[in-house]
């Protein structure tokens, strides 16, 4: 039973290898199996996978969240584009802390990555209860402090 998860991981990785490669010769396949096993071994060596239950609901909630995030990215990209090409006086760097004490590790990662992915806000530190972000302007920091993104992430993976 304990070998089940790594074995499934190897099989999934190898399926992806077959799909990507499109080259079905024996040495290539052997190489594929070896590298899949290597990757899984390295991952297990680095950290055991979290014991959190994996909910199927994430399968549709995360893509829906990504759609929202994509729109957010368009908006913030245009804002930062203006800041980059405009005068320096428009910058007002601000550091803000977002409370994330109620989040699972997955939600924390998703939130941290989302903040970094939208230009103008940058996650610089994460611990178990809060997340520190560097923002290019006051307005971006105010937005982040409003907690809209944190609420959406919490809705994706409620604990």
């Amino acid at each position, binding site marked *: 039973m304990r070998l089940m998860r790594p074995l499934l991981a190897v099989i999934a990785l190898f399926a992806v290898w077959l*799909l*990507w490669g*499109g080259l079905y010769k024996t040495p290539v396949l052997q190489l594929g199996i070896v590298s899949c096993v290597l990757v899984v071994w390295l991952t297990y060596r680095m950290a055991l996978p979290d014991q959190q239950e994996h909910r199927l609901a994430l399968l549709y909630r995360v893509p829906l969240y990504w759609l929202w995030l*994509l729109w957010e*990215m*368009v908006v913030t*990209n245009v804002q*930062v*584009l203006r*800041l*980059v*090409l405009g005068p*320096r006086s428009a*910058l*007002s*760097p*601000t*550091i*803000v*802390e*977002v*409370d994330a004490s109620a989040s699972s590790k997955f939600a924390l990662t998703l939130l*941290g*990555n*989302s903040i*970094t*992915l*939208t*230009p*103008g806000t*940058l*996650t*610089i*530190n*994460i611990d178990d209860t*809060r997340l520190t972000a*560097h923002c*290019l302007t*006051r307005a971006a*920091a105010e937005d*982040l*402090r*409003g*907690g809209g993104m*944190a609420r959406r992430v919490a809705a994706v993976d409620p604990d």
Partner: protein
Amino acid sequence: MNGILELVAGLLVISGSLFVLAGGIGALRMPDFYTRIHGASLTDSLGPVLVLGGLMIYAGLSLITVKLAAVMLFLLVTSPTATYALANAALLAGLKPEGVERMPTGPEEGA
């Protein structure tokens, strides 16, 4: 029909490239390390999304499109992680952000 699709694909690739260019300009123009990361982050958010989106339209419904979608997905997961590693390393090494203002904890704490 095909002409229009190709036109849209081309426009997406060009606008994506402009974002990447602006990211380069941002990395050079911004005043300090952390703000430079902000400038450069244009390069790995909307830029590749637009370029890869354009290429996906250009490739049509095929395995190539699936691969391009996978590339985009991996990029969107790994690049903010790498950016975080960079910024966090700078912070731990003791590099202070220049001219920043600190805001109290949010959201709506003690309000």
